[in-house]
């Protein structure tokens, strides 16, 4: 579809669409903000325009609820997209994503542990333990789960798809069982947070979360971008990558760390959102190329774009209430996953 475009042109196209989706997402929801209103709020906020008293509620909703949500949503989408591309490169397999390889479920378990055993008032970002504890434990559990799936499914530089799927299922089941157990032994307000947050949602978005996820994304994305060529080389297997100057063992370890940091911070903030990491790089492969120097930046853009669109849907379907976004991504993503599996099997039989 986009095969004739250069990478730069694809980035530009995606960036324009992303900008449009961000504006749409900032405008549409239980509150409707036409672009003129947004411009006025910004003007008032920067004291360029006189503040109109009847704007206060709308302006507050825009700056305190909507804007951080739009940002958090885009950043989370970008993280999941990049993470999908990274993991598919690491496993040399197009069906891997953080939801499948135990990365997200591990992070969920880690966060649940902090909810239940952390401070007595459950999960309070006000306390220093809450701020550091949730992402930290989310990272540790997430890293453990991902490493385990990698080790189990990959031997002698080859990833076996069936072992990968089975190991992923087993690790996800273990982590979900752990989370489920915790929600049973937890007292009421804690349990409520766990179950709610397992579905993935942006309703609790605030500036603190958006900034934290933004920092995690910026740092990890810059590091990940340096490895585009290495991931390409890794497509030829660990040995061939090594002959081209890549140290595969070190690369894999580093990328799993980078990937897990991003995913666990995002998961600690918004909960588990599956299938975005699977769909995004795959669409880009179909449309343009499997070249990771292209896939990494493009996955960030397309991931953010898709997530903004899905979040708009989540906000509109049962207005003024809203759906957890994880439900929508799973609903759309799971059939896509099956389609990829079938395609993969076909190409296996032909090859």
């Amino acid at each position, binding site marked *: 579809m986009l095969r004739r475009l250069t990478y730069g042109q694809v980035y530009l196209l995606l960036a324009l669409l992303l900008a449009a989706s961000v504006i749409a997402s900032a405008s549409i929801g239980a509150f409707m903000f036409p672009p003129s209103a947004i411009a006025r709020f910004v003007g008032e906020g920067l004291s360029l325009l006189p503040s109109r008293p009847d704007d206060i509620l709308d302006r507050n909703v825009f700056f305190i609820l909507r804007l951080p949500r739009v940002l958090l949503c885009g950043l989370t989408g970008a993280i999941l997209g990049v993470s999908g591309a990274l993991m598919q490169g690491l496993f040399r397999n197009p069906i891997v994503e953080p939801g499948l390889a135990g990365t997200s479920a591990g992070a969920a378990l880690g966060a649940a542990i902090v909810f239940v055993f952390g401070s007595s008032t459950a999960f309070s970002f006000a306390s220093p333990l809450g701020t550091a504890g949730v992402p930290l434990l989310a990272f540790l559990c997430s890293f453990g789960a991902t490493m385990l799936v990698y080790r189990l499914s990959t031997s002698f530089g080859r990833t076996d798809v069936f072992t990968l799927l089975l190991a992923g299922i087993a690790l996800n089941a273990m982590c979900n069982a752990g989370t489920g157990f915790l929600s049973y032994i937890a007292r009421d307000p804690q349990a409520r947070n766990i179950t709610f947050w397992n579905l993935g949602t942006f309703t609790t978005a605030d500036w603190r979360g958006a900034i934290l996820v933004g920092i995690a994304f910026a740092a990890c994305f810059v590091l990940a971008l340096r490895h585009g060529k290495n991931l*390409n080389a890794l497509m*030829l*297997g660990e*040995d061939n990558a090594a002959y081209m*100057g890549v140290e595969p063992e070190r690369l894999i370890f580093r990328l799993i760390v980078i990937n897990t940091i991003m995913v666990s911070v995002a998961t600690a903030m918004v909960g588990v959102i599956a299938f975005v990491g699977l769909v995004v790089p795959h669409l880009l492969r179909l449309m343009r*190329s499997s070249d990771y120097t292209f896939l990494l930046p493009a996955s960030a853009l397309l991931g953010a774009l898709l997530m903004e669109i899905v979040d708009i849907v989540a906000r509109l379907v049962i207005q003024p209430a809203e759906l957890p976004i994880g439900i929508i991504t799973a609903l759309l993503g799971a059939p896509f996953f099956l389609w990829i599996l079938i395609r993969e099997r076909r190409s296996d039989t032909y090859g």
Partner: protein
Amino acid sequence: MADAAVRIRDVSYAAGSVQILSAIALDFQPGRFNVVLGPNGAGKSTLMRIAAGRLAPTSGDVLYGETSVAAFDMTALARRRAFLSQNVELTFPLAVEDVVLMGRYPHYRGVPSLKDKEIVARALDLVDMTARRHQPYPTLSGGERQKTHLARVLAQIWNDEESAEERILFLDEPTTSLDIHYQLHLLDTAREFLKRRCTIVASLHDLNMAFDYGDRFFLLESGRLVHEADSARAVPKDLIERVYRVKAETGEGGYWRFRL
């Protein structure tokens, strides 16, 4: 003593309790087509991997010129030598020229320079794949795939400057599973490349083809070097019969004929 491109110094290798190579000492000759011979399980691949610096020997050392291969950093090593394996797995739909460009990865950061792109174009030309450069790799035939990878490894050690040091090209049973046309094409192209200050180290199964293309021969048996020679005729018949467990006779034009 002649200068050696790659010097194998008393290299032994054991995997667990299994001794795979025992005290191998040999020099691969610069600017020549060195061929490692031996039956399955003789340790050819292990020797190639150790010589290329991918595997560390249990004891002994590998020198490129005067420098131990272990002292190179990965990128410098990748600019010095390239390695073509018998079949490379790649299931993602990457364009042929993107695969060949991978050979230039050790040479640039960020985006490829004009020179890198030119080398890719010339390598594609050398293997007759220019017309297919935009084609997705998975749609190629087995022979075309191996041509693509040959172009990739040639681009990796492309040597334009007179002053630059000798490059080394390892070919690990590169013709396995190719039809005769692609086999000859690959070995012709490789030989052509010798002119660019390059040393070739190849392991081959087909003895007649090896004797046609090679300049110097190293025969391995059970992890030991049992013979070195400069021509087919210099390898004793009884040695070949013993090592390969066949009956051999020389036929027309010095070609060997084998039967059990």
